[in-house]
């Protein structure tokens, strides 16, 4: 990507973010109640979005070649289990990433 394309990409992302934050203020100026469907989407989409994002992160991992997704699976399980135990987000991220780095750099080379 060229520098200009990078800046355009960031501007587009900024516009999409501002849109989610500002839309209610334009759509419902006089305290008009939001349509039920819109409220439902705002409630139901975030969970799905993070499911999508986990898959997005793993999109280039192959089950059938290389290390057969073992480093990814192990690290995700460690990340999740640690979070269930300590409920500390940064701890889980650092531990999961650390284990992944050890696995891909020293074990599954």
């Amino acid at each position, binding site marked *: *990507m060229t520098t200009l*394309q*990078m800046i*355009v*990409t*960031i*501007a*587009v*992302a*900024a516009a*999409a*973010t*501002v*849109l*989610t*934050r*500002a839309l*209610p*203020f334009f759509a*419902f100026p006089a305290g008009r109640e*939001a349509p*039920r*469907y819109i*409220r*439902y*989407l*705002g*409630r*139901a*989409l*975030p*969970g*799905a*979005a*993070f*499911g*999508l*994002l*986990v*898959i*997005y*992160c*793993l*999109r280039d991992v192959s089950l059938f070649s290389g290390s057969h997704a073992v480093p*990814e699976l192990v*690290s*995700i399980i460690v*990340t*999740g289990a640690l*979070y269930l135990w300590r409920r500390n*987000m*940064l701890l*889980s*991220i650092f531990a*999961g*990433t650390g284990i*992944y*780095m050890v696995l*891909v*750099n020293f074990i599954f080379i």
Partner: protein
Amino acid sequence: MGITCGIYATTLGLPWWIPPLMACLIFAGSAEFVVASMLTAPFNPVQVFLTVFIINARHLFYGLSMLERFRDQGRKRPYLIFAMCDESFSINFSAQAPSGVDEGWFMTFVSLLNQLYWVVGCTLGSLFGSALALQVEGVSFAMTALFTVILLDQWLKEPVPASEIIGIVAAFAALLLFGPDMFMIPAMLLILAAVTLVRSRLEPVLDAADDAGGEHEDACAGTANPANYGNDTEAHAGGDAQ
């Protein structure tokens, strides 16, 4: 978290000024991780727009909850809306301005300080990442770990994890059908269709759970529980002051 975002972006090979620029203009943690990753892929503004919109769809809710309180803020209003990330919202929604302090200025400074911490964090991480310069394999897993934790947190909070399962299954199906470079937009359409399809079953369950949690202070289901959003502060990893 800002430091993590900065290190992550620069170890992807992006220039050092990208994370601070994103922190200033986008100011939404999870979206910035994804945008950083998309900056290393071919130019695709439509996909970036839709992805960021879906990731930040929850902010629609924050706006609905703050309609009244931002109404009379005049010149401060545009910035208050622009800077309403997860943390700014959760603080401004639940905290009371001390007596004698103007509520508008209180909320503005909460948002401004929040963003300042985020920009400084991203810049520090960015400079640190660039200074290291060596490309260690595996740092990019930080993003996977981040979203795994947020997904898990969402899953645990829901009465039924229907949305989370839909997200994973639809995305995986789209990935198998369209391949890693093309699957995001079909996946989002599939998610929208699936969520709409189960609405008649899912909506009453979600509403009932929100009611039981005492979250219905106004018409915006699921937004009116400050305690709940207080807990979210870490988990959502929006613009974050850590």
